[in-house]
């Protein structure tokens, strides 16, 4: 994928919110590049800043947010655009699939009308018949059976999985360059999750859209992503292609996360899970230096707690924000 054209560049993005207890920092110094056609997984636990980063790309942060840095789509700066400009971009250039399809769909409009509306907003030159045909086609792309009939139904007549398909159909209505999927399967049962991931894969094959998948689930990432960016406490800790991230892990947090996962394919009744000690820092009280340092088994005081470590290149397209990246892997715990 490394040869492909750069679609999205996030550079030194910082987001904070003024609160009574001081400035709450949600994201600090986040940079990554998304190339056209790839699927990138943005992974982290709650509070890691992954969803805030996505909201910033979408221009959907609350007005109280203090945003710095740069987000460029095909070289065009998005931060600071007016709401009306952003509205032109959302849906046509960038689209989003949210976790909760029931609240994201309009309950008093048929799904066909909602799809037609999504087309009309960005393509006012189309006729009603064209828009309707497109709505049926979209439902077909996302695997909804008998789309000609289903197009006249309301969201409550669909199951959770089917609603999520409708959401995906809405988001790809105008063939966006970038599809942001924010925990698209988290609210779904596993057999339905498998269907939806299949739909996303299918959509990407058919439309060639670039996907930014935001998730806490490393299993989902393992199945669908080409590249992965791991976030912790508002910052990127590691970025790599899918295989190096899992098999040549360079950041102690990523390694800890992988080791703490129980696995379906392993006998484990007599083994203990690795446990990352402590918990992530509060947004108002980040430690000095590497924010993972207080929980890290490989921490060196006087080094890790001085400055936020810059990215260190450990392989092709593989970076880790760790001051001890060359040594920690040789240390036995």
């Amino acid at each position, binding site marked *: 994928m490394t040869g492909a054209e750069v679609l999205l560049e996030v550079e030194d993005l910082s987001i904070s919110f003024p609160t009574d207890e001081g400035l709450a920092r949600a994201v600090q110094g986040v940079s990554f590049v998304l190339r056209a056609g790839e699927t990138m997984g943005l992974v982290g636990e709650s509070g890691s800043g992954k969803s805030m980063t996505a909201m910033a790309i979408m221009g959907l942060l609350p007005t109280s947010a203090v945003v710095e840095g740069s987000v460029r789509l095909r070289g065009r700066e998005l931060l600071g655009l007016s709401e009306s400009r952003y509205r032109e971009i959302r849906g046509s250039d960038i689209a989003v699939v949210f976790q909760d399809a029931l609240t994201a769909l309009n309950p008093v409009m048929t799904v066909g009308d909602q799809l037609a509306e999504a087309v009309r907003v960005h393509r006012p030159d189309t006729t009603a018949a064209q828009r309707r045909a497109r709505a049926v086609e979209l439902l077909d792309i996302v695997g909804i059976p008998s789309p000609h009939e289903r197009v006249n139904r309301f969201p409550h007549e669909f199951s959770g999985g089917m609603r999520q398909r409708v959401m995906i159909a809405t988001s790809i209505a105008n063939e966006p360059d970038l599809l942001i999927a924010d925990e698209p399967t988290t609210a779904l049962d596993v057999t339905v999750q498998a269907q939806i991931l299949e739909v996303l894969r299918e959509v990407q094959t058919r439309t060639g859209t670039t996907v930014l998948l935001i998730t806490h689930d490393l299993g989902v990432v*393992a199945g669908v992503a080409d590249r992965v960016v791991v976030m912790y406490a508002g910052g990127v800790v590691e970025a790599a292609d899918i295989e190096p991230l899992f098999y040549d892990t360079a950041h102690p947090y990523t390694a800890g996360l992988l080791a703490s996962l*129980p696995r379906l394919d392993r006998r484990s009744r007599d083994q203990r899970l690795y446990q990352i000690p402590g918990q992530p820092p509060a947004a108002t009280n980040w430690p000095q230096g590497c924010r993972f340092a207080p929980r890290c088994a490989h921490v060196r005081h006087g080094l890790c707690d001085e400055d936020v470590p810059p990215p260190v290149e450990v392989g092709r397209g593989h970076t880790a924000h760790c001051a001890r990246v060359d040594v920690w892997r040789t240390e036995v715990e």
Partner: protein
Amino acid sequence: MSTSLSVSHLVKEYRVGGGLFGRNAEVVRAVSDVSFTVEGGDTFGLVGESGCGKSSLGRSVAQLQTSDSGSIELGGDDVSGLSGKALRAWRRRVQFVFQDPYSALNPRRTVRATLAEPLAIHRLHQGAEDQRVAELLEQVGLNPQHASRFPHQFSGGQRQRIGIARALAVEPEVIVLDEPVSALDVSVQAGVLNLLDDLQRDLGLTYLFIAHDLSVVRYLSDRVGVMYLGKLVEEAPVDDLFERALHPYTQALLSAIPVPDPRVERARKRIVLAGDPPNPADPPSGCRFRTRCWKATDRCATEEPVLTEHDGGRRVACHYPDERAVTSKEPA
């Protein structure tokens, strides 16, 4: 000596909708004739998707709700017909840990008050409550000096530990764990799972562990039961179930769980089920899974498969059971 838990022919029904007088209410059979036994000191994992009846079954076992028929026995003592003092004594023996550590704790009570309440109800450790509270906090890996704090001063993982401490307070024999880690972040989840494992070893506890995440179930369970639309469709020792599942639904469920390993994950053959689970108020005739099953024949529509014993203490309810490895590295 740990206490066994035995559930036989358990049925739990709910009336749904039907307006003010409920004349047109539909009856949903959330738990439909379910039987299984958990050996003392073991963990029985109960899995299935939302609406399969696993949580309803757990609530009946802990007597948080009644059941409509069938029996629940603790080491030979049947709960049916118990009331008053005898029922209270039963409840002490079976405790419950809730999924959401945020809503399961009273935000206006200190941890001490939360943990001392069950002691007062069951008249335990009277005069030494503070000591018991400190002991409980230590047991679940929390600082006993934080007993005067309120729930909001703790993180999600710590709150779940408080929920576990509350269950332990009355020295139960069986604990029903209803999705105890599904609201927690991965790095916190491992700590709570290890804690549950330690407590079971130290105290000889018997667990009924209800979860939708099969990876977590594999980690903690000795035997596993799979439910679909109120029915137990398969039940087996943990490794047999995960490595040689017999029921097509179990196979589909296992194949749908992502494995955090790209090479394994991409080599796996996934069984993607068509459609969604049917309406529980109107389950399909015969086998309830037949509408989504790739093996279904006419027989499945007319004849309900019974849970039948197979080699190695496995039970499966299917007319066409067939071993299939879905979690191994080799594509099936």
